[in-house]
Every structure is written in structure tokens, then in C-alpha cells.
């Protein structure tokens, strides 16, 4: 083989090192995060948004978005998306409630059964998509309706109501429930309060206790899922397959990537994330309602897209999606702290989404040399 001494192409102008280092899928989300925080520090800095309680407040909301965004992100990178996430959340919550309250089975069985059920529905979504070759938009739209229909129909048929409460009582003493509904780090916050680093209640029933008494498991789950998904995606063989499945399924198949399996597994993972979301919510609030999770599928997709992923698959970052969720959560809560008319929230959301994707597209073109 003649080494033809391919020199640097004189027809390409040089691009700087710094610029190269900065150019990553999540750059847009990083810039956005900084911008959003700067904005609120200036305009809502003294509204309590950045004291311990305020931070917990928007962290919790962001963590919620993050849990479903991580699932949606992995799935989107694998080239599909799932509009049934929101309905799945309602469905999973209702399933836990019906099994534990109506059937009076132990809560841990209810949770495990629900996880099995939901991932099975996720797998079904996936199987239909890969078998028929239909766009996932349509297939999961069908499941959006089907799951929501069942979520309303069953409790009404069985319990004659559509909000089922009483799960908190059933969950007491259960070994699995605290993994979703509990808090950790209570001691640490007590210590912080003793050191007067965080505030204590000055009135009401809990006077003297620290305002923040622990980190909800919701946040732990969000961070955990994010870290695991990020490592799987960027550091493992399976991660490479996810990118490949979304980038060009046919090409990936040709070199031996089990594309169908990967896609189905990603649908299952998305369902799993929706189920984690639902379980945390049910365990925290002690009730399941037929209207839970409405429009969550869009919120997940928005967070992922703000985070720099490509709607058509094969490109994106879990960190980006997580930052997208953070932006989403901070903006949503921040507008309340800043006292903005709340019906304008949707307008802000739309505008931010638009700006984020335009920025991301620009960044992606630079990375991939796309035209």
C-alpha cells in the first residue's frame, strides 16, 4: 500500500483549538443554563429562589423532568420517540394504587409488578415499531390514547373513583417504598441548621426544624439515572450501538449491530423512567390520579431537544438532556419567584425552545460538517 502522504488540506481554513474544545452537543444547553441562572440571579435573586428552600424547590421540579428526559434522550438517540410517556405515568401510578389499595397486596409487590407491566408495554411499543416499520410517532400516539383510556376506565370500573388515595398508609413499613418516596441526608441538614447555614422554620407547626430536612429520593433517582445513562451511552459498546441504531439503522444492521433489540430496549428504558417518575410521585403524594402525567411527553422531548439531541436520532447527550430539564425547571419555577404573570409561562417556554434549537443546530453543523 503506498502511503500517499496525505497532507493537511490547504483548502480548509484553520479553526482554533478553543473553539474545537467548546463544540459539544451539550454546549447549547450549557450556555442556556448559564444564561438562565444569570437572568434569575439578577431578577429574582432576593426572592428566596436561591436560599436552601428555593433551591430544593426548583431542583425537585427539574429532577422530575430529568427522570423522563433521560429516558426520552436515550430513545431519541436510538432514533425513535415516545409520545406515550405521559399516559404511561398515569397508568403506572394507577396500577400501583389499584394493586396495593384495591387488591391489598404489599406495596413492594405492587411496585415491582407495575415496573414489569410498564416495561412490557414499552417493549410492545418497540416491537410494533420495529416489526411494522411504522414511525414511532404514530405507534406511540396510539398508545397515548390507549393507556390513558385504561387509566380512566379501570379505577372507575373497580373503585368508582378516579383518584385513589390511601397509599401512604399502605406504604408504611414497606421496604421498597422509601426508595422512591423517602428523603436522605436529614442528619446533615439538621447539622447545617445547627450551624445556622440554612434557615429554620420561624412559625407554624415545625418551628425550629430546618426548612430543608433532606434530599428527596426523586433527586437521587434523577442524578443516578443521568450518570448511569451517560456512562452507558458514551463509554460502552451498548452505547455505541444506540448511536448506531439512531444514526443509520440499515448501516448498523449490516455490520452486525442488533438494531431491533437496541430499539426495543430503549423503549423499555423510557417506560422504566416513566415508571420511576410515577412511583416517586405516588409514594410522595400517597395517591394516584387518572390525570397524572398529562403532556409530560412533550416536556420530556422539549428538555431533550433543548439539550442538543437531534429529533431524527443518532446524535445527542444525556448531560445535555439533563441540563435541558434543569433549564426547564428553573425557568418554570423562576417565573413564579420573579412574579411574572403565570399564563405567560407557556409563551416563555415556546420562545426558549425555539432559541435553544436554533443555537443547537448551529453548533451541530459545526461538529458534523453537515450542510
Amino acid at each position, binding site marked *: *500500500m*503506498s*502511503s*500517499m*502522504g*496525505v*497532507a*493537511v488540506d490547504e483548502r480548509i481554513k484553520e479553526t482554533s483549538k478553543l473553539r474545537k474544545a467548546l463544540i459539544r452537543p451539550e454546549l447549547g444547553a450549557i450556555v442556556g443554563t448559564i444564561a438562565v441562572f444569570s437572568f434569575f440571579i439578577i431578577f429574582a435573586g432576593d426572592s428566596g429562589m436561591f436560599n436552601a428552600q428555593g433551591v430544593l424547590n426548583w431542583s425537585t421540579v427539574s429532577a422530575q423532568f430529568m427522570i423522563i428526559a433521560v429516558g426520552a434522550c436515550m430513545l431519541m438517540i436510538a432514533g425513535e420517540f415516545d409520545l406515550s410517556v405521559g399516559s404511561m405515568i398515569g397508568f403506572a401510578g394507577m396500577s400501583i394504587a389499584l394493586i396495593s389499595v384495591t387488591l391489598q397486596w404489599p406495596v413492594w409487590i405492587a411496585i415491582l409488578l407495575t415496573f414489569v407491566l410498564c416495561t412490557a408495554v414499552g417493549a410492545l411499543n418497540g416491537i410494533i415499531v420495529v416489526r411494522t416499520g411504522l414511525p414511532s410517532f404514530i405507534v406511540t400516539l396510539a398508545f397515548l390514547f390507549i393507556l390513558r383510556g385504561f387509566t380512566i376506565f379501570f379505577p372507575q370500573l373497580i373503585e368508582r373513583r378516579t383518584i385513589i388515595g390511601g397509599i401512604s398508609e399502605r406504604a408504611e413499613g414497606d421496604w421498597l417504598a422509601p426508595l422512591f418516596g423517602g428523603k436522605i441526608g436529614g442528619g446533615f441538614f439538621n447539622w447545617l441548621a445547627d450551624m445556622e447555614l440554612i434557615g429554620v422554620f420561624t412559625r407554624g407547626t415545625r418551628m425550629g426544624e430546618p426548612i430543608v430536612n433532606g434530599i428527596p429520593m426523586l433527586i437521587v433517582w434523577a442524578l443516578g439515572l443521568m450518570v448511569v445513562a451517560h456512562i452507558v451511552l458514551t*463509554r*460502552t*459498546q451498548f*452505547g*455505541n*450501538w444506540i*448511536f*448506531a441504531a439512531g*444514526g*443509520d439503522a*440499515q*448501516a*448498523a*444492521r*449490516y*455490520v*452486525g*449491530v*442488533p438494531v431491533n433489540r437496541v430499539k426495543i430496549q430503549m423503549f423499555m428504558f423510557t417506560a422504566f423512567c416513566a415508571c420511576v417518575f410515577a412511583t416517586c410521585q405516588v409514594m410522595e403524594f400517597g395517591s394516584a390520579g387518572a390525570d397524572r402525567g398529562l403532556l409530560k411527553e412533550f416536556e420530556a422531548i422539549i428538555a431533550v431537544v433543548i439539550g442538543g439531541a*437531534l429529533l431524527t436520532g*443518532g*446524535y445527542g447527550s444525556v448531560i445535555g438532556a439533563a441540563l435541558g430539564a434543569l433549564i426547564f425547571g428553573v425557568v418554570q419555577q423562576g417565573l413564579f419567584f420573579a412574579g411574572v404573570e403565570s399564563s405567560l409561562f407557556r409563551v416563555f417556554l415556546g420562545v426558549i425552545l425555539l432559541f435553544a434549537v436554533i443555537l443547537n443546530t448551529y453548533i451541530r453543523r459545526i*461538529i*458534523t*460538517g*453537515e450542510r
Partner: protein
Amino acid sequence: MEPYDHNPIVEMRDIEKHFGPVIALNGVSFDIRPGECHCLLGDNGAGKSTFIKTMAGVHKPTKGAIFFEGRQMSFDSPRDAMEAGIATVYQDLAMIPLMSVTRNFWMGREPIKRVGPFKFMDFKTANEVTMEEMRKMGINLRSPDQAVGTLSGGERQTVAIARAVHFGAKVLILDEPTSALGVRQTANVLSTIDKVRKTGIGIVFITHNVRHALAVGDRFTVLNRGKTLGTAQRGQITPEELQDLMAGGQEMVALEGSLGGTV
């Protein structure tokens, strides 16, 4: 040592393949021996790509048998075929533009590093090997993280060939690797084929170009409308005969006359 002294690595017998109402292959036999370059020629739609996809495990033959090193095999997926040692560079390239060169290079066969109970992809090795293999093929990458989408067509083709060679295939299938390439890149690919052949790998080389085939081929099989027109050894056939065989003979004579015999 002539290649046809060996036993074939892969032997395909009477392969048929139907797609719904379309009969793409109608009984094709073919074999490939170590160290030889076996050219597969034929018109558009003759069934060349379909045939090699059957060999590579992408399609299952409707009828017929595949023997790999003497044993009858049936590949369920491209992965099976790859693991047995059949590497393929597809006509439609099988590269994913949005992914980096390294990720593309290793796709489907990622190197694994164990950390405790966990298996990670070994990016350090992967990057080094990729850079090295590309350098061997005469391409200096800016960085192994470069997206394949930023490479030129010839460079992409080279990545695909380098990948196939690297994975130590026993049989390397190249589906029209030169059709989109310029003279220089073509020469490069042909000399790569020559070099790979000398290491004892059997090469299946698909092309429309009789001259490219004659430059490196040891044997020549011509497909026509899903059937073989026969296999010839190097030296047993002249370029003109091969040309005629591919095009179905007579009509060419008239055309060649009017165009000065240069087609």
C-alpha cells in the same frame, strides 16, 4: 501456489432469492478460495448486491446451500457471518455520518475493557488502532473524534475497507468500491486489494468496470438477470470477451463501432 489449488473458504451452491414477486437470484453457484480475488461482474440489477448480501448473512437464501470451510452453514445475521470471518464493504457504505471515525470503525465489534464487573469500551486502544490503520491506508485524520460526515467520499470508502481488513477477515467482500472514486483513489483501492490478497485473504470484488476487474482479478464470474453466465480464470479470457459476456454480446459491437471501440 495458485489460489484454485486450495479448498474454497466459502462455497455457495444454487442460491435462489425471491423478494415477493421479484426473483432476484435464480440459482447462482460461486466459491472463493484463500488468497484469490474473485471478481463478480454484471449489469445493473443482475443481482450482484443481492448475492453478496446472501453470503454476508443479510438475506437468507430462498433456496440453496452455503458451505463455510467445508461445513454447511446458515447465517442468521450479519453478525454471525462477521464472526465466522466474512467482512463486507457495502455499496451503500455502511458508515454513519454523525458518528466519529473511531465509533464507526469499531461499530459492532467494539473493544472491551473490564473494570471490576463492568465492561467498558476501550477508547484508548480504539482510537490508537483507528489512527494507525487509517495512516496505513494513507489517510491522516485530524482526530479520531472527527465525524465521518466531514470526510470525503474516498476517505469514507477507505475507512470501510480499513475496518474490514483490520478485523482479520478470511473473506473480504467489496461491493463496487471504485464506482464513485477518482483515478487516484481507485488506484489506491486496487493496490489495497492486491496487498490484502497477498496475505491469504479471499476477496470478492464487485465492479462494472472490466478494466478494474482485470487489473486485480484471479477469477471472473458474470451474473446476468439472476443467473451465472459462467466463471473464467485469469488468462483464459480476454477483456473483449469479458465485456461481451457482461453486456450480452451483439448489441455492443454495433455501439462500439459507432463510438470508436473505447467504451
